[in-house]
């Protein structure tokens, strides 16, 4: 059943075919120590150059296809994480990045959820503290495969949370 693109060419091919040559990533820092972010930033450096594959970063969740979550999902950030996910159009995919987001560093306590999966439907987990850029690239490749599956299944439409009246009422 696996349809993961494995080589860079396949990855580029999938992104070009299914996402019009541009797949946009929104990063979400849910209490990370910022080392994961440093590694993510390295992805854009010439050595890895994820733009050549068709990945781009966006600040607006409305434009994003992929949510890249770092940190142990502190409780103070829960609402923002949910709102960000809800604001993304389908098909969308959530990638939890680093040991904290995977639940390997902080236990659940009154201040943290301990892992990203407690709040968001995580599709791909990338381990490592921090994960190396190559591990991140591999994880993104897996996520693209998952996204392509969602497009095929047409299973991306239902929102995670029902609509809440926010502010205006």
């Amino acid at each position, binding site marked *: 059943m696996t349809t993961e693109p494995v080589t860079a060419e396949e990855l580029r091919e999938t992104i070009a075919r299914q996402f019009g040559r541009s797949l946009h990533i929104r990063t979400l820092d849910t209490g990370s120590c910022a080392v994961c972010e440093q590694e993510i930033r390295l992805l854009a450096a010439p050595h890895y150059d994820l733009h050549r594959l068709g990945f781009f970063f966006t600040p607006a*969740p409305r434009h994003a296809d992929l949510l890249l979550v770092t940190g142990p999902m502190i409780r103070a950030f829960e609402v923002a994480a949910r*709102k960000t996910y809800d604001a993304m159009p389908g098909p969308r995919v959530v990638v939890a990045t680093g040991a904290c987001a995977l639940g390997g560093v902080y236990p659940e306590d009154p201040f943290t959820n301990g892992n990203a999966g407690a709040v968001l439907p995580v599709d791909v987990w990338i381990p490592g503290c921090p994960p190396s850029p190559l591990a991140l690239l591999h994880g993104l490749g897996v996520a693209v495969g998952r996204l392509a599956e969602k497009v095929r299944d047409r299973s991306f439409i239902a929102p995670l949370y029902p*609509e809440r009246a*926010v*502010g205006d009422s």
Partner: protein
Amino acid sequence: MTPLDLLYAAGAAWLAAALAGLLLARTPAGLRACCALSALGGAAAAAGGGWSLLYGDTAVVSPGGATVTGGPLQLQATSLAGVFTALLGVVAVAIACFAPRYHEPSPGTGWYLAAYNVALLACLGVLAAGGMVTFLVAWETMSLACYLLILRHPRSGESARGAFWFLALSEAGFLLVVAAFVILSAKTGATSLPAIAARAASVPGGWRAAAYLLALFGFGFKAGLVPLHVWLPEAHPVAPADGSAFLSGVVVKLGIYGIALFAFRLDPPTGTWPGLVTMGGGAVTAAIGILYAMAERDIKRFLAYSTIENAGIIVTAFGAAMIFHASGQQALWTFLLIAGIYHVANHGCSKALLFLEAGVTEHATGTRDMDRLGGLIRRLPRSAVIAFTGTLGIAALPPLNGFVSEWLIFQGLFQGFRAGSHLTGILIVLAAATLGLTGGLAVYAFVRGFGIPYLGMPRTRQAAAASEAGQPVIGPGLLAVACVALAVGAPVMLAALSRAARTVTGVSLGPLLLPGKLTVIPAHADFSAFSPTYLAVFLVCALAVPVLIYLAGRPRARSVTVPVWDGGIVSFRPRMQYSAMTFSAPTRVTFDALYRPAVSVTRQADHDPAGRSGPVHYEAQVTPVFQRYLYRPAVRALEWLADLVRPVQSGDVNLYLLYVFAVILLAYLLGAV
């Protein structure tokens, strides 16, 4: 039968409506009866005005040999006045549909409606005047009746102040208008308008220019030319909504009618400079009007400044037309007259609509402050649609009416290179550039003027509780239909207007302006062409494309509704939205030199003994430059002069008897000599 007969009927209906208002407006049924009579008059005036566009000028008649204050009552329905008369009629009908739901039945309403209907009658008198005395008497009656209708709530100081500004500036303007008419009448030896127009060519150029300038400034007080405009933002907010709609939609337009009457019909001045003065004044008025509009939070003051802007645009067109006339470009002369008058009709409908909607907003929420409104599109959906139509029209966005006439004015101004001398050509294009700046700012201002009250979240509890039940819809709706008709039916309108313009300028633009197939050509075939009707059809079709895509895709995909993306904050509050003042901040900062804002910042911390930081209170106010630096010194000078004369009036009876004796003695002595 002539169009004048319809105007008689309109006048009679309005007179009856005034009496009905005075006697019957204490009951709801009486109020409705009064408004029905008023609507009847409006319909007759609209029909009469429209007909006189096609009919041409009627003869001057004096019904029954009647006289007004010594002069003969002379009436005439002219083509030039026809547009204004039709506009008066349409606005009157819309207001008559609006008023019964807006006003409470009470004696005060009765007085108000009586003053309003007399004002309608007086406006009709101004437009149908065939002689100087009739014109002046009607003009003064209109001013006084408008003063009374602004003074709907005479006990409020603000109301009295606004009404007084109106009256004072109206009277100052009236003196200049009288002087202009007296010069023309004395030099031509005629009192009827057609006779003055026929003999004006024999008057020396200096006198004609003097008469024209007096008329420009005199009527400029009514039309709202900067710096004679100060009554508009003072009087509009205190008048009832329908009164403001009438003031902006009709009374200001009569000032423009006066200018057109002198510039095109009675006394077309010779030489280029009167045109340059007119065009420059118009361009400055347009720019300053819209810049001040950007700094206003009160919807009605904002709309009043926008009226000043539009009056400026129209007067700029007239000024450029006069320049073209002086340099022998008769086709462009006629074309810009047509474009200017077309803009009069467009702005009259859109602005009356927006003032009526401002009244609806005020009734539904209890405030006119944009920063206390918001989200009205959900609570007043029908009003929002109507107001949006008017906003598109007034912001000159295609495909609505304001766009068509502003486009025509621009096309006329861009042909400034035909004006003969390079300098005048450059000045005309400079005026076009100023209008370009104005047009851009107008879009910005009306995005704010519609977006802040109608879109977003309600900023106060009153705005959240607004309800459309019982709010008038038909009146403003009628004007919205008129706005759309003026845009889509532009070729028909232009054909009628070119017949009207021909009666004044003698140049027939008909086939050149409208070469068939709903296309409009601005005076010269080698310049540009455009079809307002096709543009409207195209834009509506273009809007249909996303709708069709949505409908085609709906069976295959489900649409998902999620909240607005707010950056992920826990609670998105109305106070976090753009306010009217922050939205206009870029303009206010850029044009700081004009606004001279007086900013005061008070920190709680300054008064707190423990030095804790607390709320910070920020207040910014625009300095009323014209009131402070122009009118205040003028009033002081007047008071100083009055003080000089005061010793003569001691109040002592013996002294007055001495005066009487001295005068009699003087008369005898003079008689003896």
